[in-house]
C-alpha cells in the first residue's frame, strides 16, 4: 500500500525480545523495511518523545522488519520501553548500504554495540552468497554481548568464525575488537572489511585498514534530524551521512578529516570527541 518511503508509517510492534538487559529488539510488519539493504536505517518516531535513526535489523518472517535499540538517553529509553502491541512511526529505509560482490571470497566484520545491527543484516547476505566470514563482536562485558548465538545461526551455511571481545575479559578475548582485528590481520588476509559501531572504534579500524592495506566499508552514525539530506545535522566534512552514506569506503574516509575527531552537536556547533 505505502509506496512512498518518506511519509510516516505507523506500525504495531508484534514481538519484542530482550537481547541484553539494556538492548531490545522490536519486530513489526513493514514490507518496505523488510526489503532494506544492510546498512540502511529508518527514522523511528517514538510518539510524544523523539524521532531517532535506527538501523534495520534482521527479522525472520516475511514482510516483517525489526530494530534493535539500546537504552541510553530519553529517546532510546522510551523506545526501549515499547512492547508488543505498542505503536511507533517509521519512515525510510534511507541511505546507501554495504556493497558485497561475488569476487569477495573472505571478509571480516567488526562491530561494537548496536553497530552490530547492520552487520547482522549483512551476515544474512554473506551466508546466502557463501562468502567466508569472520565476525568480531565487541562488548564491554559478558552480559552486554549482542547477537552471539543469533550470528551463529544466520551464518550457518557459510564458513565462519565468531570472535567476541570484552573490555573486562568476562567473555572471549579481553580487550577491544580492534585489538582482535590486529591480531587476526597479522596472519590472515581479507577481501573486504565491514565495520559499524562507536565512531572512535571505527576510526581505529580505519587506521588499521590503512596499515594492512585492507579494503574497508564503514557505516557511520551522526546526529540526524531529517534523514533525507536537507538539514546537514549529520554532516561530516562535506558529506551528509544520511544520503551520501551511511556507508563510506577507505577512499572517502581518507578525505574526512573530521572522522573520529569532530562531530556537530544539536545546535550544529563543532565539538571534539
Amino acid at each position, binding site marked *: 500500500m505505502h509506496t512512498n518511503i518518506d*511519509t510516516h508509517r505507523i506500525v504495531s510492534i508484534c514481538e519484542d525480545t530482550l537481547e541484553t538487559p539494556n538492548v531490545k529488539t522490536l519486530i513489526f510488519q513493514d514490507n518496505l523495511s523488510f526489503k532494506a539493504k544492510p546498512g540502511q536505517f529508518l527514522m523511528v518516531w517514538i510518539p510524544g518523545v523523539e524521532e531517532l535513526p535506527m538501523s534495520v535489523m534482521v527479522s525472520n518472517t516475511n514482510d516483517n522488519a525489526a530494530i534493535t535499540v539500546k537504552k541510553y538517553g530519553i529517546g532510546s529509553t522510551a523506545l526501549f520501553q515499547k512492547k508488543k502491541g505498542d505503536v511507533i512511526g517509521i519512515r525510510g529505509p534511507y541511505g546507501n548500504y554495504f556493497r558485497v560482490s561475488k569476487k569477495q571470497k573472505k571478509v571480516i566484520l567488526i562491530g561494537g554495540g548496536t553497530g552490530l545491527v547492520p552487520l547482522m543484516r549483512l551476515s544474512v547476505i554473506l551466508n546466502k552468497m557463501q562468502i567466508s566470514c569472520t565476525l568480531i563482536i565487541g562488548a564491554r562485558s559478558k552480559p552486554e554481548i549482542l547477537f552471539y548465538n543469533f550470528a551463529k545461526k544466520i551464518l550457518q551455511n557459510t564458513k565462519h568464525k565468531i570472535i567476541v571481545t570484552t573490555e573486562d575479559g568476562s567473555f572471549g578475548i579481553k580487550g577491544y575488537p580492534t585489538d582482535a582485528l590486529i591480531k587476526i590481520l597479522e596472519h590472515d588476509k581479507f577481501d573486504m572489511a565491514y565495520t559499524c559501531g562507536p565512531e572512535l572504534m571505527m576510526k581505529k579500524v580505519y587506521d588499521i585498514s590503512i596499515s594492512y592495506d585492507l579494503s574497508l566499508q564503514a557505516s557511520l552514525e551522526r546526529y540526524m534530524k531529517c534523514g533525507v539530506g536537507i538539514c546537514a545535522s549529520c*554532516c561530516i566534512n562535506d558529506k551528509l551521512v544520511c544520503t551520501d552514506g551511511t556507508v563510506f569506503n577507505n577512499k572517502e574516509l581518507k578525505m574526512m578529516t573530521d572522522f573520529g575527531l569532530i562531530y*556537530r552537536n544539536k545546535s550544529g*556547533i563543532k565539538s571534539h570527541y
Partner: protein
Amino acid sequence: MKRSTKDILAVNLAGISLDNPLILASGFLGISQEIFTRLYHEFEVGAIVSKSISLNPMEGYRGPTVVPLENFNFLNAVGLSNPGSDSFSNEIKNNDVPLLVSLVGSQENEFPKLIKKFDKLCILGYEVNLSCPHVAKMGMEVGDDIELVYRIIKRIKSVTTKPVIIKIGIGNTNIVKIAEIAQDAGANAITAINTIRAMKIDIKTERPILSNKFGGLSGKAIKPIGIRSVYEISKNLNIPVVGCGGIFSWEDVIEYMLAGSSAVQIGSSIGYLGMSVFKEIKKGIMDYIKKKDLKNIMEIIGNAHKY
C-alpha cells in the same frame, strides 16, 4: 561573439552579481562551510543562504522536527536550531563562495550585534528572516509587527553597507504591505515566501507528529501561493524580489521569474531530488534560453505583468 554560460545566466540582485539565479534557501544544509563549498563547486548554485543565525546557539526542538508529507512537501519545526553567531562566524571565516548570512532575532538590538560578527567577513550580504511561522517571538511574530519590522531594518541598514534582503511570508499581515514597509525602511530586496504555518496529526496515535505540534509547510503545495506573492510584491515595489517556495524544476524557476523574481531560492526539492537538483535545473534553464534565443535570463523577469 559566443556568450558563455555565465553571461547568459548571470543575474544582478540588489547590486550583487550571481553566476545564475539559483540560490540555496535558508535552513537547508546551511551550517557547514565545507558543504557550501561543495554546493558551489560541485552543484553550481548561484548563491547560498545560511541557516538563520541567532545571537546565541539554539538547540531547537526535539524530534520529529522534519516531517515529509505526501506530494513532495515537508512540514518542519526545527525550532531555528543553529550554532549561534560566534560559532558560525568562525565556521565561515575563510569563506570564498557567494554566501548570504541569514539573521534571526526577537529584538531590535540583537541585529546590530549580529551584523558586527559577520560584517568583516567575505559574504555577499544578509537575509533577515522575519517569517518563521513556528518559533514564538521570532520570525513571523516579528514579521507581523509592522513597526518593529521597520525599526529592525532601519537599524540594520544603519550599521552595514552590505545588501540586506528581507524574507517575508504568509502570516497575519498583507504580504505586499510588509514588503512596502521593508522597502521604505531601506531593504535592498525581498525574499518571498517562507513556509506556511501548518500541522499534521497522525490518526493512529491521535497526536500531532511534530514535537512542536505546529510547523511550516514547504514544497510543491505552496508554489501557487509563492507565485502569487512574488507577482503582487514585484508589481508594487521597486526593489528586486527573490521567489521561494516549491521549486522542483526549471519550469518552476521560469514561472517565478515571469511572476517577477530576479532570482529564486530552492529548498525542499533537495530532500526529494538531491543536491543535483541545482545542476539539473540550471541545464533546463540553459536549454530554455537557447530555444528562446535570449541574451540573458533577466529578460524574462516580470514578463507576466504585461497581462
